[in-house]
């Protein structure tokens, strides 16, 4: 089905253009995100966008570009640089009947508003015995490269995954980003909506109408029988790129994209491991207590007897992001690391 398809590179892009002729609609991740936002704003008066620079000519890397012209600056609202207070404002507005989408250019700024996210948004429904709720979407973007360094490159999804009451989604395809944005706006709970900057150019099939992708449901991007690779966000593409080199080695990879990391689609992962007996987890964040730790733990608890080899985590090292290109090269990784990790796993046994 076209909406489960991952287009890895340029040539796939061209194939997609071809598909367009066949009645499919090619849109970039960025466009899909903006379309979801615009369509929901049209449909529902309560939806509005807030964030530093959302009405900037750049429009949050294009994802909100021009929306203020269509909906006015009251509904596409530039903000003071005051993340904690403004998150409180978003929470209050949400509880009082609005449906804010709060956008952060970089995920690194979220520690500024941890208190409002962790102590307020996440707990409010519970603390009031379910009598109130906080329908709030918090978008944040993960950056990478060009010496952005320690304070402008972080992927902090694990911090939010740890907190009960939050939902955390990390879409990887244009189809999913639209559907998950619609679901997130409609969800009624605080949803951390995390986008990797390097996904923005990805192209894929995106229906024009409003549709949803369910929060909490992962998807098998490629079926395989030898090893399960669970990859999040932009790592889905790297995992897909690892498929062929591994096939060449006789290893048939199953690629799973959880799409949502909280709630996590444990069943999908466990079913896959039952079949393959092997698990590699690929995350764009740090290792210790990261997303990969949780997935490893779930499998060690619930699918232990199917495991034929040690679980493997392919993640960033536990080091702040360096500036120098040489150190960045050592810090980040791509599909090649996935290939070598999987191969290693088969060598070891």
């Amino acid at each position, binding site marked *: 089905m076209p909406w489960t398809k991952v287009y890895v590179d340029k040539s796939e892009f061209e194939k997609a253009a071809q598909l367009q002729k066949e009645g499919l609609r090619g849109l970039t991740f960025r466009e899909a995100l903006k379309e979801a936002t615009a369509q929901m704003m049209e449909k529902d008066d309560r939806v509005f966008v807030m964030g530093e620079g959302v009405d900037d000519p750049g429009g949050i890397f294009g994802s909100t570009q021009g929306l203020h012209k269509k909906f006015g600056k009251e509904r596409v609202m530039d903000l003071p640089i005051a993340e904690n207070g403004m998150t409180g404002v978003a929470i209050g507005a949400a509880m009082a009947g609005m449906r804010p989408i709060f956008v952060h250019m970089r995920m690194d700024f979220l520690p500024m508003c941890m208190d409002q996210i962790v102590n307020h948004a996440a707990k409010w429904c519970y*603390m009031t*015995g379910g009598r109130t709720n906080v329908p709030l979407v918090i978008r944040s973007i993960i950056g990478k490269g060009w010496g952005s360094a320690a304070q402008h490159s972080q992927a902090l999804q694990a911090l939010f995954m740890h907190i009960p009451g939050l939902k955390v989604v990390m879409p990887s395809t244009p189809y999913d980003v639209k559907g998950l944005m619609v679901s997130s706006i409609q969800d009624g709970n605080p949803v951390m909506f995390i986008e990797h900057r390097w996904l923005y150019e990805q192209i894929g099939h995106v229906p024009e109408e409003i549709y949803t992708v369910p929060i909490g449901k992962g998807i098998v991007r490629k079926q395989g029988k030898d090893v399960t690779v669970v990859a999040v966000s932009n790592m889905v593409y790297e995992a897909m790129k690892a498929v062929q080199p591994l096939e060449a080695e006789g290893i048939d990879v199953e690629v799973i994209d959880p799409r949502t990391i909280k709630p996590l689609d444990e069943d999908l992962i466990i079913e896959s491991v039952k079949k393959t007996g092997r698990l590699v987890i690929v995350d764009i964040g740090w290792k210790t207590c990261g997303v990969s730790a949780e997935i490893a733990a779930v499998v060690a608890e619930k699918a232990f007897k199917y495991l034929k080899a040690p679980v493997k985590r392919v993640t960033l090292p536990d080091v702040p992001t360096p500036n120098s290109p040489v150190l960045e090269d050592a810090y980040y990784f791509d599909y090649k690391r996935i290939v070598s990790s999987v191969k290693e796993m088969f060598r070891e046994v």
Partner: protein
Amino acid sequence: MVKNKKLIKTAVKKSVRLVRTQADSPRRATKKGINSIPAKTLKGLYETILRIRRFEEKIIEVYPAQDMKTPVHLCIGEEAIAAAVCIHLRKDDYIFSTHRSHGHSIAKGSDMKRMMAEFYGRKTGCSKGKGGSMHLCDPENGILGSTAIVGGGIPIAVGAGLASLMKGTDTVSVAFFGDGAMDEGTFHESMNFASLKKLPVIFLCENNFYATNSPQSARQPHDNIAMRAAGYGMPGVQVDGNDVVAVYEAAKEAVDRARAGGGPSLVECRTYRWKGHVGPDCDVEKGCRPRDEHEMWLKKCPVERTRKLLLENKIMSEKEMEKLLDNINKEMDEAVEFGRSSPFPDASELFDDVYYKG
């Protein structure tokens, strides 16, 4: 050495003078104040003040039984503020409160039975037993919840004000907070944003001069909270918080302005907490506060002052007051009885309400 010393000195002096002036004379009720308030309103104010007082005293009474398993932050000594602010509010106006929220909830019209049930951790509690004393709510009554994170509720109140504006309603939103909360960055961020957008918000600071046991002087360079408003281009006013008419007037101005689209205000009400920061005891014995300071404030009891005011102005008779007290006492007994006899939630309910299910 310093060239423009004069200029700077003047600046310093000016700001210091400003502090002194305002700190020494918090606004009291205007002369005609009492006369311009309808008798019914005055009675209502007294009734609310008394109800809050008795509610808190009831907690003191029952707490030693150790079956009310929730930390209680009593507002005895500060009751006039909640009463005189909330009387200007409609059911659909919002208030956001703190760890010390009993008085605000009562004044806004919350059901005391459900409050007590909440304190007793019962299913019938206003937060279904999940929140406890620090997380009261009453959504139908404009109380969307309370937070015990100092300064945490201020921006949330501003957000509700923003929603009013966006929805085009004329509801207002009151952020109750203490002098301690003014230390937090959220105060600044909230004041700035509310002023920027001219939101219908009242920043209502109950300055009781302490945060837990930290005196204001250990946390702030001066004790004038109202004067902080000017920096935000917002009106600020300081009143004697134990003077119900003064609070009534200041709150009325602020609420009316907000409702009419005139934007936010900061209202500082100077008052004092009689009991310990948390729990039913008085902490003067522990050396937390000077005894004479405490005693000075006991003399400014808002219940007594309001009572005297009403008697002197013949708004209520002693007899009416006695009857009122009787009724209120009955309410309290009923509330405790309701709380104590209500069923506990089922253990399985632990897992409900983590997420809203729509």
